[in-house]
């Protein structure tokens, strides 16, 4: 196997007596979509937060592109090329959809300490941002403030922002959450195409989407990974069926 893009080793995080992450190891290989599934409260979002850097792990290492990033904050990890989406949309609410994406373009260009040139007429920001909105089918709503977008549109905008960072890996935390069946289906097709741009660690509850997309699946229960494997391996794993899929089926 090739060198993993993202390599998590023996990560641990406790909140008081609760072991939210209890010795988790995961690898994300180039070109892959690695899905992370598990019942509510299994610690999936906590894990994503630690990988993205918004939460500090108690112990363990996170290597990204061969480099230990455990000590870096979220902004520094993002600059290295780790793009995340949030389980609950997290946007600059007063800014238009376009300005939200322009902010990501600006961050990628590494140029936030410029005080004169006006962003409203800066084609170096507007054109790439508009292209990202077109990719997620949101161009028509470019000038609507994020606060006035529908739930589904905000999810699309989160993805456009992540794309605008030209990342080396995506971390998506339930991108389908709250989307209708039609929206989920379209997003599934869209994410499918993304794996060639960058590998993806995907937390998702929508099992149809997970089985359609994932190259590998890890099952997280009570902060531990109880199984990792291909879709077929996970489907037929008796322990997984008991712990998780059994409840759903």
């Amino acid at each position: 196997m090739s060198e993993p893009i993202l390599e998590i080793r023996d990560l641990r995080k406790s909140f008081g007596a609760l072991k939210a992450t209890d010795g988790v190891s995961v690898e994300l290989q180039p070109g892959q979509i690695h899905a992370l599934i598990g019942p509510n409260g299994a610690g999936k979002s906590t894990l994503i937060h630690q990988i993205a850097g918004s939460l500090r792990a108690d112990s363990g290492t996170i290597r990204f592109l061969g480099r230990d990033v455990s000590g870096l904050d979220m902004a520094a990890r993002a600059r290295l090329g780790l793009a995340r989406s949030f389980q609950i949309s997290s946007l600059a609410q007063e800014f238009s959809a376009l300005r939200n994406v322009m902010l990501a373009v600006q961050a990628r260009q590494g140029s936030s300490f410029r005080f004169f040139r006006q962003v409203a007429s800066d084609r170096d920001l507007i054109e790439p941002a508009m292209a990202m909105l077109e990719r997620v089918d949101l161009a028509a709503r470019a000038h609507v403030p994020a606060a006035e977008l529908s739930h589904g549109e905000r999810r699309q905008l989160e993805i456009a922002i992540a794309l605008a960072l030209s990342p080396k890996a995506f971390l998506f935390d339930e991108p389908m959450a709250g989307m209708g069946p039609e929206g989920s289906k379209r997003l599934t097709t869209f994410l499918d195409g993304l794996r060639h741009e960058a590998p993806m660690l995907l937390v998702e509850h929508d099992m149809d989407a997970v089985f359609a997309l994932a190259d590998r699946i890890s099952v997280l229960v009570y902060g531990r990974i109880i199984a990792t494997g291909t879709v077929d391996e996970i489907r037929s794993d008796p322990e997984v069926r008991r712990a998780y899929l059994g409840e759903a089926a």
Partner: protein
Amino acid sequence: MNRETTVNLLLALLLLGAPILAANLGEPFYVTLATRVVVLALAAVGLNLALGLGGLLSFGHAAFFGLGGYVAGILATHAFNGEPLFADIPATTSMPLIWVTAVVVAGLVALPIGAISLRTSGVYFIMITLAFAQLIYYFAISWPAYGGEDGLSMSMRNAFPGVNTAKPLPYFLICYAALMVTLLLFRIVEGSRFGSALQAARQNGTRLAAVGIAPFSIRLVAFAVSAMITGFAGALYADLNRFVGPSMLSWHMSGELIVLIILGGKGRLFGPVAGAMIFVFFEYVLGGITERWQFFLGLILLGIVLFARGGLLGLLSGKPRHV
């Protein structure tokens, strides 16, 4: 031209026209009153950068206002007495030099204060900025060389090349020009990449970090620039009154600047200008009727906070819009 621009232009013309008219009618008092509006507005423009754009509720901006004032007062006193400032650095009565010094001093003091305060947020940020300002306040009170509790009187206004600053109208025009230039710079910075990042930091710091921009560094620079503008206003204020005292550094002053912004409209270009106009107007009109004028100002503030969050500019020109 949209409505906000029209309102801004009218405010700017009113603020320029009224004192010119008063000067021609031989009423220099009103010119001085208008200068007070302009200088307070400028100080609040500084705070508006941190508070309005960046969402940083600094309760310690009096520190920078006072520092600017003391820079003007100390330099003028030394120059008047013919004493060098340090070993062989001469003091000066040149306003441009004093302004530059005030701006640099305010910025240099703001950097460490900001670097420490910005590690906190919310009510802790408010308290820690207040604490730093009080520290400087008590330092000024206990330093007899520069007047201590009594402050420093300046025997005459500092000089500006080619202008008789002792007359009220020319001095007003200097301050007015300073305000307009600063407002222009404020508008430019607001629309720049830095301004985008700063406003995003206010709306959602996590989002900013998630795209790879550390909110801390953006906020720190904004805090320092904000302090520099307020420090500049402090220097002008000292020259206006020909006096600088610890009251410029007191927490009342910090509160006043916040009140100005809330009255006028937080984050709006002309918010501080409108706020200072209302504030000085009430201070003068109500202050002439009753010593308890601040009680009524309090009622107005209450009304604005409850019913007109956008301040006067929100009432006059509606919601702000982002591209």
